[in-house]
Protein backbone atom coordinates (compact mmCIF):
# COMPACT_ATOMS: atom_id res chain seq x y z
CA UNK A 1 0.00 0.00 0.00
CA UNK A 2 1.31 3.43 -0.90
CA UNK A 3 1.80 6.25 1.52
CA UNK A 4 -1.40 8.05 2.37
CA UNK A 5 -2.50 11.23 0.68
CA UNK A 6 -0.32 11.00 -2.42
CA UNK A 7 -1.62 10.62 -5.94
CA UNK A 8 0.41 7.48 -6.54
CA UNK A 9 -1.17 4.20 -7.62
CA UNK A 10 -1.98 1.46 -5.11
CA UNK A 11 0.33 -1.51 -5.46
CA UNK A 12 -1.98 -4.47 -6.07
CA UNK A 13 0.86 -6.93 -6.37
CA UNK A 14 1.52 -7.46 -2.69
CA UNK A 15 1.02 -10.94 -1.39
CA UNK A 16 -2.57 -12.04 -1.12
CA UNK A 17 -4.27 -8.77 -2.22
CA UNK A 18 -7.42 -10.62 -3.14
CA UNK A 19 -8.24 -12.80 -0.15
CA UNK A 20 -6.27 -11.27 2.67
CA UNK A 21 -7.58 -7.85 1.84
CA UNK A 22 -10.96 -9.09 3.07
CA UNK A 23 -9.46 -9.48 6.52
CA UNK A 24 -7.40 -6.32 6.09
CA UNK A 25 -4.23 -7.84 7.51
CA UNK A 26 -2.28 -5.28 5.51
CA UNK A 27 -4.50 -2.37 6.32
CA UNK A 28 -4.37 -1.55 10.02
CA UNK A 29 -2.52 -2.27 13.16
CA UNK A 30 -5.06 -4.49 14.92
CA UNK A 31 -3.43 -3.89 18.32
CA UNK A 32 -3.83 -0.09 18.03
CA UNK A 33 -7.38 -0.45 16.76
CA UNK A 34 -8.53 -3.16 19.17
CA UNK A 35 -12.26 -3.27 19.76
CA UNK A 36 -13.25 -1.42 22.95
CA UNK A 37 -16.04 -3.98 23.48
CA UNK A 38 -16.15 -7.81 23.53
CA UNK A 39 -12.36 -8.09 23.20
CA UNK A 40 -12.06 -8.47 19.43
CA UNK A 41 -13.67 -7.28 16.20
CA UNK A 42 -14.74 -10.76 15.00
CA UNK A 43 -16.82 -11.08 18.20
CA UNK A 44 -18.41 -7.70 17.55
CA UNK A 45 -19.29 -8.78 13.99
CA UNK A 46 -20.67 -12.08 15.29
CA UNK A 47 -22.90 -10.07 17.64
CA UNK A 48 -24.24 -7.95 14.74
CA UNK A 49 -25.01 -11.05 12.64
CA UNK A 50 -26.47 -12.87 15.64
CA UNK A 51 -28.81 -9.97 16.38
CA UNK A 52 -29.89 -9.91 12.71
CA UNK A 53 -30.76 -13.63 12.82
CA UNK A 54 -32.62 -13.14 16.09
CA UNK A 55 -34.63 -10.21 14.65
CA UNK A 56 -35.61 -12.23 11.56
CA UNK A 57 -36.71 -15.18 13.72
CA UNK A 58 -38.71 -12.89 16.03
CA UNK A 59 -40.37 -11.13 13.08
CA UNK A 60 -41.22 -14.50 11.55
CA UNK A 61 -42.89 -15.62 14.78
CA UNK A 62 -44.63 -12.24 15.05
CA UNK A 63 -45.97 -12.54 11.49
CA UNK A 64 -47.18 -16.12 12.06
CA UNK A 65 -48.83 -15.11 15.32
CA UNK A 66 -50.90 -12.22 13.99
CA UNK A 67 -51.33 -12.83 10.24
Amino acid at each position, binding site marked *: *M*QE*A*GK*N*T*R*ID*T*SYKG*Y*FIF*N*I*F*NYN*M*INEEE*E*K*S*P*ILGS*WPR*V*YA*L*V*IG*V*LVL*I*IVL*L*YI*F*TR*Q*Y*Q
Partner: protein
Amino acid sequence: MSITDWIVLGITLLAIIGYGIWKSRGTKNIEGYLLADRKMPWYHVGLSVMATQASAITFLSAPGQGYTDGLRFVQFYFGLPLAMVVLCITFIPIYNKLNVFTAYEFLEKRFDNKTRTLTAFLFLLQRGLSTGITIYAPAIILSTILNIDVNYTIVINGLLVIGYTVYGGAKAVSYTQLFQMSVIFAGLFLAAYMVVHLLPENVSFSDALHISGKMGKINAIDTSFDLDNKYNIWSGIIGGFFLQLSYFGTDQSQVGRYLTGKSVAQSRLGLVMNGLIKIPMQFFILLIGVMVFTFYQFHQAPVFFNKAEIKQIEKSAYKADYQKLEQAYTLAHREKQAQVNRLVDAIHSHNEAAIDEAGKQVKASDAKSNSIRKEVAALMKKNSPTADTNDTNYIFLSFITQQLPVGVVGLLIAIIFLASMGSMASGLNSLASTTVVDFYKRLYKKEESEKSYLSTSRWTTVAWGLFCIVTAFYASRVGNLIEAVNILGSLFYGTILGIFLVAFYMKNISGTAVFYAALVAEAFIVYAWMTDLTAFLWLNVIGCFAVMLVAWIIQMVMNKSKENKTSS
Protein backbone atom coordinates in the same frame (compact mmCIF):
# COMPACT_ATOMS: atom_id res chain seq x y z
CA MET B 1 -51.59 24.35 14.22
CA SER B 2 -51.98 26.11 17.59
CA ILE B 3 -49.64 28.80 18.95
CA THR B 4 -48.22 26.27 21.45
CA ASP B 5 -47.31 23.94 18.57
CA TRP B 6 -45.61 26.79 16.70
CA ILE B 7 -43.62 27.67 19.84
CA VAL B 8 -42.55 24.02 20.37
CA LEU B 9 -41.60 23.75 16.68
CA GLY B 10 -39.69 27.04 16.64
CA ILE B 11 -37.78 26.44 19.89
CA THR B 12 -36.79 22.87 18.89
CA LEU B 13 -35.50 23.93 15.47
CA LEU B 14 -33.70 27.08 16.63
CA ALA B 15 -32.07 25.36 19.63
CA ILE B 16 -30.64 22.56 17.52
CA ILE B 17 -29.48 24.75 14.62
CA GLY B 18 -28.01 27.29 17.07
CA TYR B 19 -26.11 24.55 18.91
CA GLY B 20 -24.71 23.17 15.62
CA ILE B 21 -23.55 26.62 14.48
CA TRP B 22 -22.01 27.42 17.88
CA LYS B 23 -20.09 24.12 18.04
CA SER B 24 -18.78 24.49 14.49
CA ARG B 25 -17.43 28.04 14.77
CA GLY B 26 -13.79 28.66 13.83
CA THR B 27 -13.46 26.26 10.89
CA LYS B 28 -10.23 27.24 9.09
CA ASN B 29 -9.47 24.54 6.52
CA ILE B 30 -11.25 22.05 4.28
CA GLU B 31 -10.41 19.08 6.51
CA GLY B 32 -12.33 20.83 9.28
CA TYR B 33 -15.08 21.95 6.92
CA LEU B 34 -15.57 18.69 5.01
CA LEU B 35 -14.54 16.09 7.65
CA ALA B 36 -14.90 17.83 11.05
CA ASP B 37 -11.09 17.48 11.55
CA ARG B 38 -11.59 13.66 11.83
CA LYS B 39 -12.12 13.96 15.59
CA MET B 40 -15.61 12.58 16.20
CA PRO B 41 -16.34 9.79 18.75
CA TRP B 42 -18.29 6.64 17.80
CA TYR B 43 -21.71 7.78 19.01
CA HIS B 44 -21.42 10.94 16.89
CA VAL B 45 -20.49 8.79 13.89
CA GLY B 46 -23.32 6.30 14.55
CA LEU B 47 -26.04 8.90 15.06
CA SER B 48 -24.77 10.96 12.13
CA VAL B 49 -24.89 7.89 9.84
CA MET B 50 -28.43 7.15 11.03
CA ALA B 51 -29.59 10.75 10.71
CA THR B 52 -28.22 10.91 7.17
CA GLN B 53 -30.19 7.86 6.10
CA ALA B 54 -33.34 8.71 8.07
CA SER B 55 -34.71 11.63 6.11
CA ALA B 56 -38.09 13.26 6.55
CA ILE B 57 -39.26 10.73 4.02
CA THR B 58 -38.65 8.04 6.65
CA PHE B 59 -41.06 9.71 9.04
CA LEU B 60 -43.66 10.75 6.48
CA SER B 61 -43.61 8.02 3.88
CA ALA B 62 -42.72 4.98 6.01
CA PRO B 63 -45.78 5.20 8.32
CA GLY B 64 -47.84 5.74 5.13
CA GLN B 65 -46.21 2.63 3.71
CA GLY B 66 -47.12 0.76 6.92
CA TYR B 67 -50.71 2.01 6.58
CA THR B 68 -51.16 0.94 2.96
CA ASP B 69 -48.78 -1.98 2.60
CA GLY B 70 -48.15 -3.33 6.11
CA LEU B 71 -44.81 -4.22 7.65
CA ARG B 72 -43.20 -5.95 4.68
CA PHE B 73 -41.00 -2.95 3.86
CA VAL B 74 -38.89 -3.80 6.94
CA GLN B 75 -37.32 -6.67 4.94
CA PHE B 76 -35.66 -4.04 2.77
CA TYR B 77 -33.22 -3.40 5.67
CA PHE B 78 -32.18 -7.02 6.31
CA GLY B 79 -29.00 -6.65 4.27
CA LEU B 80 -27.90 -3.60 6.27
CA PRO B 81 -26.19 -5.29 9.26
CA LEU B 82 -24.27 -7.58 6.88
CA ALA B 83 -23.17 -4.56 4.86
CA MET B 84 -22.00 -2.85 8.07
CA VAL B 85 -19.77 -5.83 8.87
CA VAL B 86 -18.17 -5.81 5.38
CA LEU B 87 -17.65 -2.04 5.61
CA CYS B 88 -15.96 -2.36 8.99
CA ILE B 89 -13.67 -5.10 7.73
CA THR B 90 -12.73 -3.69 4.33
CA PHE B 91 -13.79 -0.16 3.46
CA ILE B 92 -13.03 1.74 6.69
CA PRO B 93 -9.41 0.54 7.07
CA ILE B 94 -8.66 1.28 3.40
CA TYR B 95 -10.12 4.79 3.44
CA ASN B 96 -8.42 5.47 6.76
CA LYS B 97 -5.04 4.20 5.60
CA LEU B 98 -5.18 6.27 2.41
CA ASN B 99 -6.31 9.33 4.37
CA VAL B 100 -8.84 10.23 1.66
CA PHE B 101 -11.43 13.03 1.73
CA THR B 102 -13.83 11.21 -0.61
CA ALA B 103 -14.41 7.57 -1.53
CA TYR B 104 -13.59 8.38 -5.16
CA GLU B 105 -10.03 9.47 -4.37
CA PHE B 106 -9.34 5.82 -3.64
CA LEU B 107 -10.33 4.90 -7.22
CA GLU B 108 -7.61 7.08 -8.73
CA LYS B 109 -5.04 5.52 -6.44
CA ARG B 110 -6.22 2.05 -7.51
CA PHE B 111 -7.17 2.69 -11.16
CA ASP B 112 -6.90 6.04 -12.92
CA ASN B 113 -8.40 9.51 -13.05
CA LYS B 114 -11.12 8.72 -15.62
CA THR B 115 -12.59 5.95 -13.41
CA ARG B 116 -12.53 8.28 -10.41
CA THR B 117 -14.19 11.07 -12.39
CA LEU B 118 -16.90 8.79 -13.85
CA THR B 119 -17.79 7.35 -10.44
CA ALA B 120 -17.81 10.79 -8.80
CA PHE B 121 -20.05 12.04 -11.63
CA LEU B 122 -22.54 9.16 -11.15
CA PHE B 123 -22.61 9.97 -7.44
CA LEU B 124 -23.24 13.69 -8.01
CA LEU B 125 -26.10 12.90 -10.39
CA GLN B 126 -27.78 10.44 -8.04
CA ARG B 127 -27.20 12.36 -4.79
CA GLY B 128 -28.17 15.73 -6.28
CA LEU B 129 -31.55 14.34 -7.39
CA SER B 130 -32.14 12.36 -4.16
CA THR B 131 -31.38 15.36 -1.96
CA GLY B 132 -33.90 17.37 -3.97
CA ILE B 133 -36.56 14.78 -3.15
CA THR B 134 -35.65 14.91 0.56
CA ILE B 135 -36.32 18.68 0.63
CA TYR B 136 -39.72 18.18 -0.91
CA ALA B 137 -40.99 15.84 1.85
CA PRO B 138 -41.12 18.33 4.75
CA ALA B 139 -42.08 21.15 2.39
CA ILE B 140 -45.45 19.48 1.85
CA ILE B 141 -46.06 19.69 5.61
CA LEU B 142 -45.59 23.42 5.77
CA SER B 143 -47.60 23.77 2.60
CA THR B 144 -50.53 21.90 4.19
CA ILE B 145 -50.29 23.73 7.52
CA LEU B 146 -49.77 27.25 6.18
CA ASN B 147 -52.01 26.67 3.19
CA ILE B 148 -49.48 28.15 0.79
CA ASP B 149 -47.92 26.85 -2.40
CA VAL B 150 -45.48 23.98 -1.81
CA ASN B 151 -42.82 25.73 -3.93
CA TYR B 152 -42.52 28.53 -1.33
CA THR B 153 -42.08 26.04 1.50
CA ILE B 154 -39.42 24.18 -0.51
CA VAL B 155 -37.46 27.43 -0.81
CA ILE B 156 -37.81 28.32 2.92
CA ASN B 157 -36.77 24.86 4.14
CA GLY B 158 -33.95 24.61 1.60
CA LEU B 159 -32.47 28.00 2.50
CA LEU B 160 -32.57 27.16 6.24
CA VAL B 161 -30.42 24.06 5.74
CA ILE B 162 -28.11 25.76 3.23
CA GLY B 163 -27.52 28.48 5.86
CA TYR B 164 -26.11 26.30 8.64
CA THR B 165 -24.37 23.80 6.33
CA VAL B 166 -22.55 26.57 4.49
CA TYR B 167 -21.47 28.16 7.77
CA GLY B 168 -20.44 25.13 9.81
CA GLY B 169 -19.75 22.34 7.29
CA ALA B 170 -19.36 18.77 8.56
CA LYS B 171 -19.07 19.85 12.20
CA ALA B 172 -22.41 21.65 12.11
CA VAL B 173 -23.90 18.63 10.33
CA SER B 174 -22.57 16.21 12.97
CA TYR B 175 -23.48 18.25 16.06
CA THR B 176 -26.99 19.04 14.84
CA GLN B 177 -27.54 15.38 13.89
CA LEU B 178 -26.59 14.21 17.40
CA PHE B 179 -29.45 16.20 18.90
CA GLN B 180 -31.77 15.61 15.97
CA MET B 181 -31.63 11.85 16.54
CA SER B 182 -32.20 12.21 20.29
CA VAL B 183 -35.33 14.29 19.70
CA ILE B 184 -36.42 11.93 16.91
CA PHE B 185 -36.23 8.84 19.16
CA ALA B 186 -38.14 10.62 21.93
CA GLY B 187 -40.81 11.80 19.49
CA LEU B 188 -41.27 8.37 17.93
CA PHE B 189 -41.98 6.77 21.30
CA LEU B 190 -44.42 9.56 22.05
CA ALA B 191 -46.19 9.08 18.68
CA ALA B 192 -46.43 5.31 19.25
CA TYR B 193 -47.86 5.83 22.73
CA MET B 194 -50.39 8.37 21.45
CA VAL B 195 -51.72 6.24 18.61
CA VAL B 196 -52.25 3.22 20.89
CA HIS B 197 -53.76 5.51 23.54
CA LEU B 198 -56.29 6.84 20.98
CA LEU B 199 -57.69 3.37 20.21
CA PRO B 200 -61.12 2.60 21.72
CA GLU B 201 -61.03 1.54 25.38
CA ASN B 202 -62.02 -2.05 24.66
CA VAL B 203 -59.22 -2.46 22.08
CA SER B 204 -55.81 -3.32 23.53
CA PHE B 205 -52.49 -3.14 21.68
CA SER B 206 -52.66 -6.92 21.15
CA ASP B 207 -56.21 -6.62 19.76
CA ALA B 208 -54.99 -3.90 17.40
CA LEU B 209 -52.26 -6.25 16.13
CA HIS B 210 -54.86 -9.00 15.60
CA ILE B 211 -57.14 -6.65 13.66
CA SER B 212 -54.37 -5.33 11.43
CA GLY B 213 -53.06 -8.87 11.03
CA LYS B 214 -56.44 -10.10 9.82
CA MET B 215 -56.44 -7.22 7.33
CA GLY B 216 -53.07 -8.27 5.89
CA LYS B 217 -50.86 -5.61 7.51
CA ILE B 218 -48.73 -7.87 9.75
CA ASN B 219 -46.61 -9.22 6.93
CA ALA B 220 -43.09 -8.57 8.22
CA ILE B 221 -41.65 -11.76 6.73
CA ASP B 222 -42.36 -13.16 3.29
CA THR B 223 -40.23 -16.24 2.61
CA SER B 224 -41.40 -16.80 -0.98
CA PHE B 225 -38.72 -16.29 -3.64
CA ASP B 226 -40.13 -14.10 -6.40
CA LEU B 227 -37.97 -11.79 -8.51
CA ASP B 228 -40.94 -9.52 -9.23
CA ASN B 229 -41.86 -9.15 -5.55
CA LYS B 230 -40.35 -5.91 -4.26
CA TYR B 231 -40.08 -6.92 -0.62
CA ASN B 232 -39.38 -10.44 0.55
CA ILE B 233 -36.69 -11.87 2.79
CA TRP B 234 -34.45 -12.79 -0.17
CA SER B 235 -34.62 -9.46 -1.98
CA GLY B 236 -34.04 -7.81 1.41
CA ILE B 237 -31.00 -9.85 2.39
CA ILE B 238 -29.36 -10.17 -1.05
CA GLY B 239 -30.56 -7.07 -2.94
CA GLY B 240 -30.65 -5.00 0.26
CA PHE B 241 -27.11 -6.08 1.12
CA PHE B 242 -25.79 -4.81 -2.22
CA LEU B 243 -27.81 -1.59 -2.02
CA GLN B 244 -26.72 -0.85 1.56
CA LEU B 245 -23.10 -1.82 0.88
CA SER B 246 -23.06 0.53 -2.06
CA TYR B 247 -24.88 3.30 -0.18
CA PHE B 248 -22.72 3.19 2.94
CA GLY B 249 -19.47 2.18 1.23
CA THR B 250 -19.43 4.37 -1.85
CA ASP B 251 -21.94 7.21 -1.35
CA GLN B 252 -19.99 10.19 -0.09
CA SER B 253 -22.95 11.41 2.00
CA GLN B 254 -22.31 8.34 4.21
CA VAL B 255 -18.56 7.87 3.68
CA GLY B 256 -18.13 11.50 4.74
CA ARG B 257 -19.88 10.71 8.02
CA TYR B 258 -17.65 7.86 9.16
CA LEU B 259 -14.49 9.54 7.85
CA THR B 260 -15.14 12.07 10.64
CA GLY B 261 -14.37 9.32 13.20
CA LYS B 262 -11.21 9.94 15.20
CA SER B 263 -9.91 6.40 14.60
CA VAL B 264 -10.74 3.22 12.72
CA ALA B 265 -12.20 1.77 15.94
CA GLN B 266 -14.51 4.78 16.48
CA SER B 267 -15.72 4.71 12.86
CA ARG B 268 -16.33 0.95 13.08
CA LEU B 269 -18.28 1.23 16.34
CA GLY B 270 -20.47 3.92 14.78
CA LEU B 271 -21.40 1.56 11.92
CA VAL B 272 -21.91 -1.37 14.31
CA MET B 273 -24.35 0.80 16.25
CA ASN B 274 -26.25 1.48 13.02
CA GLY B 275 -26.27 -2.26 12.20
CA LEU B 276 -27.85 -3.06 15.56
CA ILE B 277 -30.45 -0.29 15.76
CA LYS B 278 -31.64 0.31 12.18
CA ILE B 279 -34.00 -2.65 11.69
CA PRO B 280 -35.80 -2.29 15.06
CA MET B 281 -36.17 1.46 14.42
CA GLN B 282 -37.60 0.95 10.94
CA PHE B 283 -39.92 -1.79 12.19
CA PHE B 284 -41.14 0.56 14.90
CA ILE B 285 -41.90 3.36 12.42
CA LEU B 286 -43.81 0.97 10.13
CA LEU B 287 -45.70 -0.39 13.14
CA ILE B 288 -46.80 3.16 13.97
CA GLY B 289 -48.27 3.29 10.43
CA VAL B 290 -50.05 -0.03 11.02
CA MET B 291 -51.45 1.31 14.32
CA VAL B 292 -52.68 4.44 12.50
CA PHE B 293 -54.41 2.07 10.05
CA THR B 294 -56.07 0.26 12.97
CA PHE B 295 -57.10 3.59 14.49
CA TYR B 296 -58.88 4.47 11.24
CA GLN B 297 -60.87 1.23 11.39
CA PHE B 298 -62.72 2.80 14.34
CA HIS B 299 -62.71 6.42 13.15
CA GLN B 300 -63.51 7.44 9.62
CA ALA B 301 -60.40 8.28 7.60
CA PRO B 302 -60.53 11.01 4.96
CA VAL B 303 -61.45 9.55 1.58
CA PHE B 304 -58.25 11.13 0.30
CA PHE B 305 -55.45 12.35 2.61
CA ASN B 306 -54.08 15.16 0.42
CA LYS B 307 -56.30 18.15 1.24
CA ALA B 308 -54.92 20.28 -1.59
CA GLU B 309 -56.17 17.79 -4.21
CA ILE B 310 -59.57 17.57 -2.49
CA LYS B 311 -59.89 21.36 -2.68
CA GLN B 312 -59.13 21.19 -6.39
CA ILE B 313 -61.85 18.63 -7.09
CA GLU B 314 -64.37 20.50 -4.92
CA LYS B 315 -63.84 23.57 -7.11
CA SER B 316 -64.22 21.60 -10.33
CA ALA B 317 -67.12 20.39 -12.49
CA TYR B 318 -66.72 16.96 -10.82
CA LYS B 319 -67.78 18.25 -7.40
CA ALA B 320 -71.11 16.35 -7.44
CA ASP B 321 -69.43 13.09 -8.48
CA TYR B 322 -66.89 13.53 -5.70
CA GLN B 323 -69.59 14.15 -3.10
CA LYS B 324 -71.40 10.96 -4.14
CA LEU B 325 -68.19 8.99 -3.71
CA GLU B 326 -67.58 10.61 -0.33
CA GLN B 327 -71.07 9.53 0.83
CA ALA B 328 -70.48 6.01 -0.43
CA TYR B 329 -67.18 6.00 1.46
CA THR B 330 -68.93 7.04 4.68
CA LEU B 331 -71.48 4.23 4.29
CA ALA B 332 -68.71 1.72 3.52
CA HIS B 333 -66.87 2.84 6.66
CA ARG B 334 -69.97 2.36 8.85
CA GLU B 335 -70.45 -1.13 7.45
CA LYS B 336 -66.76 -1.90 7.99
CA GLN B 337 -66.80 -0.51 11.52
CA ALA B 338 -69.66 -2.83 12.50
CA GLN B 339 -67.68 -5.77 11.15
CA VAL B 340 -64.50 -4.64 12.92
CA ASN B 341 -66.46 -4.55 16.18
CA ARG B 342 -67.61 -8.12 15.49
CA LEU B 343 -63.97 -9.05 14.89
CA VAL B 344 -62.99 -7.50 18.24
CA ASP B 345 -65.75 -9.54 19.99
CA ALA B 346 -64.52 -12.69 18.27
CA ILE B 347 -60.92 -11.95 19.34
CA HIS B 348 -62.06 -11.44 22.94
CA SER B 349 -64.00 -14.73 22.86
CA HIS B 350 -60.89 -16.57 21.50
CA ASN B 351 -63.14 -18.26 18.94
CA GLU B 352 -60.77 -19.01 16.03
CA ALA B 353 -63.54 -19.85 13.54
CA ALA B 354 -65.41 -16.62 14.36
CA ILE B 355 -62.16 -14.64 14.16
CA ASP B 356 -61.42 -16.04 10.70
CA GLU B 357 -64.95 -15.41 9.47
CA ALA B 358 -65.07 -11.84 10.84
CA GLY B 359 -61.56 -11.23 9.47
CA LYS B 360 -62.67 -12.20 5.95
CA GLN B 361 -65.68 -9.86 6.15
CA VAL B 362 -63.58 -6.96 7.40
CA LYS B 363 -61.07 -7.53 4.61
CA ALA B 364 -63.89 -7.53 2.02
CA SER B 365 -65.27 -4.26 3.45
CA ASP B 366 -61.79 -2.75 3.40
CA ALA B 367 -61.45 -3.71 -0.26
CA LYS B 368 -64.74 -1.89 -0.93
CA SER B 369 -63.46 1.27 0.81
CA ASN B 370 -60.21 1.04 -1.13
CA SER B 371 -62.04 0.72 -4.40
CA ILE B 372 -63.95 3.96 -3.60
CA ARG B 373 -60.60 5.65 -2.83
CA LYS B 374 -59.36 4.51 -6.23
CA GLU B 375 -62.45 5.96 -7.88
CA VAL B 376 -61.76 9.30 -6.16
CA ALA B 377 -58.14 9.21 -7.42
CA ALA B 378 -59.38 8.44 -10.94
CA LEU B 379 -61.81 11.36 -10.72
CA MET B 380 -58.95 13.66 -9.70
CA LYS B 381 -56.88 12.46 -12.65
CA LYS B 382 -59.87 13.04 -14.94
CA ASN B 383 -60.22 16.57 -13.59
CA SER B 384 -56.52 17.31 -13.89
CA PRO B 385 -54.05 14.92 -15.57
CA THR B 386 -51.25 16.42 -13.43
CA ALA B 387 -53.06 15.71 -10.13
CA ASP B 388 -51.00 13.92 -7.46
CA THR B 389 -53.18 10.84 -6.86
CA ASN B 390 -50.80 9.06 -4.47
CA ASP B 391 -51.63 10.23 -0.94
CA THR B 392 -49.33 7.82 0.98
CA ASN B 393 -47.03 10.65 2.08
CA TYR B 394 -49.97 12.58 3.59
CA ILE B 395 -51.43 9.79 5.76
CA PHE B 396 -49.24 10.24 8.86
CA LEU B 397 -49.21 14.01 8.47
CA SER B 398 -53.01 14.06 8.37
CA PHE B 399 -53.19 11.84 11.47
CA ILE B 400 -50.73 14.04 13.42
CA THR B 401 -52.44 17.32 12.66
CA GLN B 402 -56.03 16.10 13.13
CA GLN B 403 -55.80 13.60 16.00
CA LEU B 404 -52.89 14.46 18.30
CA PRO B 405 -53.04 16.97 21.17
CA VAL B 406 -51.55 20.47 21.23
CA GLY B 407 -47.78 20.50 21.80
CA VAL B 408 -47.27 16.94 20.56
CA VAL B 409 -48.18 18.11 17.04
CA GLY B 410 -45.44 20.78 17.18
CA LEU B 411 -42.86 18.27 18.41
CA LEU B 412 -43.70 15.68 15.73
CA ILE B 413 -43.64 18.28 12.98
CA ALA B 414 -40.24 19.39 14.35
CA ILE B 415 -39.02 15.78 14.08
CA ILE B 416 -39.98 15.61 10.43
CA PHE B 417 -38.14 18.87 9.80
CA LEU B 418 -35.07 17.74 11.75
CA ALA B 419 -34.90 14.46 9.88
CA SER B 420 -35.08 16.31 6.60
CA MET B 421 -32.43 18.77 7.66
CA GLY B 422 -30.06 16.02 8.80
CA SER B 423 -30.11 14.11 5.55
CA MET B 424 -30.14 17.21 3.39
CA ALA B 425 -27.19 18.72 5.27
CA SER B 426 -25.17 15.51 4.81
CA GLY B 427 -26.19 15.46 1.16
CA LEU B 428 -25.05 19.04 0.56
CA ASN B 429 -21.81 18.49 2.47
CA SER B 430 -21.00 15.38 0.41
CA LEU B 431 -21.92 17.06 -2.90
CA ALA B 432 -19.60 19.94 -2.03
CA SER B 433 -16.80 17.54 -0.93
CA THR B 434 -16.97 15.56 -4.16
CA THR B 435 -17.19 18.62 -6.39
CA VAL B 436 -14.26 20.38 -4.71
CA VAL B 437 -11.99 17.36 -4.05
CA ASP B 438 -12.69 15.20 -7.11
CA PHE B 439 -13.27 17.89 -9.73
CA TYR B 440 -12.14 21.40 -8.72
CA LYS B 441 -9.01 20.48 -6.77
CA ARG B 442 -8.08 17.48 -8.93
CA LEU B 443 -8.76 18.83 -12.40
CA TYR B 444 -8.84 22.62 -12.15
CA LYS B 445 -6.92 24.24 -9.25
CA LYS B 446 -4.40 21.77 -7.85
CA GLU B 447 -2.38 24.14 -5.66
CA GLU B 448 -4.51 26.71 -3.87
CA SER B 449 -4.44 28.00 -0.31
CA GLU B 450 -6.62 26.36 2.39
CA LYS B 451 -8.59 29.60 2.63
CA SER B 452 -9.36 29.49 -1.07
CA TYR B 453 -10.49 25.83 -0.97
CA LEU B 454 -12.63 26.59 2.09
CA SER B 455 -14.28 29.49 0.29
CA THR B 456 -14.87 27.33 -2.82
CA SER B 457 -16.37 24.57 -0.62
CA ARG B 458 -18.84 27.07 0.84
CA TRP B 459 -19.86 28.45 -2.55
CA THR B 460 -20.21 24.92 -3.93
CA THR B 461 -22.51 24.04 -1.02
CA VAL B 462 -24.67 27.06 -1.94
CA ALA B 463 -24.75 26.04 -5.62
CA TRP B 464 -25.78 22.45 -4.83
CA GLY B 465 -28.37 23.69 -2.35
CA LEU B 466 -29.98 25.76 -5.10
CA PHE B 467 -29.85 22.81 -7.53
CA CYS B 468 -31.61 20.61 -4.95
CA ILE B 469 -34.29 23.24 -4.41
CA VAL B 470 -35.02 23.32 -8.14
CA THR B 471 -35.14 19.49 -8.22
CA ALA B 472 -37.60 19.51 -5.31
CA PHE B 473 -40.03 21.58 -7.42
CA TYR B 474 -40.51 18.49 -9.61
CA ALA B 475 -40.51 15.86 -6.80
CA SER B 476 -44.31 15.76 -6.46
CA ARG B 477 -44.50 13.82 -9.72
CA VAL B 478 -42.58 10.79 -8.46
CA GLY B 479 -45.26 9.14 -6.27
CA ASN B 480 -44.22 7.41 -3.03
CA LEU B 481 -41.11 9.34 -1.97
CA ILE B 482 -39.33 6.62 0.00
CA GLU B 483 -39.62 4.24 -2.93
CA ALA B 484 -38.59 6.92 -5.41
CA VAL B 485 -35.37 7.62 -3.51
CA ASN B 486 -34.54 3.92 -3.30
CA ILE B 487 -35.33 3.31 -6.98
CA LEU B 488 -33.13 6.27 -7.93
CA GLY B 489 -30.33 4.87 -5.77
CA SER B 490 -30.72 1.40 -7.27
CA LEU B 491 -30.18 2.83 -10.76
CA PHE B 492 -26.62 3.90 -9.87
CA TYR B 493 -25.50 2.08 -6.73
CA GLY B 494 -24.97 -1.35 -8.35
CA THR B 495 -22.59 0.08 -10.94
CA ILE B 496 -20.71 2.18 -8.39
CA LEU B 497 -20.41 -0.76 -5.99
CA GLY B 498 -19.18 -2.97 -8.86
CA ILE B 499 -16.36 -0.48 -9.53
CA PHE B 500 -15.34 -0.52 -5.86
CA LEU B 501 -15.52 -4.31 -5.54
CA VAL B 502 -13.32 -4.69 -8.64
CA ALA B 503 -10.90 -2.23 -7.00
CA PHE B 504 -10.82 -4.17 -3.75
CA TYR B 505 -10.92 -7.76 -4.90
CA MET B 506 -9.91 -8.13 -8.58
CA LYS B 507 -6.31 -7.04 -8.63
CA ASN B 508 -5.60 -7.80 -12.30
CA ILE B 509 -8.31 -5.50 -13.68
CA SER B 510 -7.10 -2.14 -14.99
CA GLY B 511 -8.77 1.25 -14.95
CA THR B 512 -9.64 1.16 -18.67
CA ALA B 513 -11.43 -2.20 -18.35
CA VAL B 514 -13.50 -1.15 -15.33
CA PHE B 515 -14.30 2.24 -16.88
CA TYR B 516 -15.88 0.75 -20.02
CA ALA B 517 -17.50 -2.04 -17.98
CA ALA B 518 -19.18 0.61 -15.82
CA LEU B 519 -20.56 2.40 -18.90
CA VAL B 520 -21.96 -0.89 -20.30
CA ALA B 521 -23.44 -1.91 -16.93
CA GLU B 522 -25.08 1.48 -16.37
CA ALA B 523 -26.66 1.43 -19.84
CA PHE B 524 -28.03 -2.06 -19.14
CA ILE B 525 -29.41 -1.04 -15.72
CA VAL B 526 -31.26 1.93 -17.23
CA TYR B 527 -32.65 -0.40 -19.93
CA ALA B 528 -33.67 -2.99 -17.29
CA TRP B 529 -35.46 -0.33 -15.26
CA MET B 530 -37.25 1.19 -18.29
CA THR B 531 -38.46 -2.22 -19.45
CA ASP B 532 -39.45 -3.35 -15.91
CA LEU B 533 -37.18 -6.37 -16.19
CA THR B 534 -37.21 -7.07 -12.45
CA ALA B 535 -38.03 -5.57 -9.03
CA PHE B 536 -35.78 -2.56 -8.38
CA LEU B 537 -33.73 -4.03 -5.49
CA TRP B 538 -32.29 -6.63 -7.85
CA LEU B 539 -30.88 -3.85 -10.07
CA ASN B 540 -28.19 -3.36 -7.40
CA VAL B 541 -27.08 -6.97 -7.66
CA ILE B 542 -27.26 -7.02 -11.48
CA GLY B 543 -25.35 -3.72 -11.85
CA CYS B 544 -22.63 -4.83 -9.47
CA PHE B 545 -22.05 -8.23 -11.08
CA ALA B 546 -22.33 -6.75 -14.60
CA VAL B 547 -19.43 -4.39 -13.88
CA MET B 548 -17.30 -7.22 -12.44
CA LEU B 549 -18.07 -9.62 -15.29
CA VAL B 550 -17.72 -7.13 -18.17
CA ALA B 551 -14.52 -5.69 -16.67
CA TRP B 552 -13.08 -9.20 -16.46
CA ILE B 553 -14.02 -9.92 -20.11
CA ILE B 554 -12.60 -6.59 -21.36
CA GLN B 555 -9.40 -7.21 -19.42
CA MET B 556 -9.10 -10.69 -20.96
CA VAL B 557 -9.52 -9.22 -24.46
CA MET B 558 -6.99 -6.49 -23.69
CA ASN B 559 -4.49 -9.03 -22.36
CA LYS B 560 -4.96 -11.26 -25.44
CA SER B 561 -4.50 -8.35 -27.79
CA LYS B 562 -1.35 -7.32 -25.89
CA GLU B 563 -0.02 -10.88 -26.09
CA ASN B 564 -0.71 -11.01 -29.84
CA LYS B 565 1.10 -7.73 -30.42
CA THR B 566 4.08 -8.89 -28.36
CA SER B 567 4.33 -12.24 -30.18
CA SER B 568 3.97 -10.67 -33.65
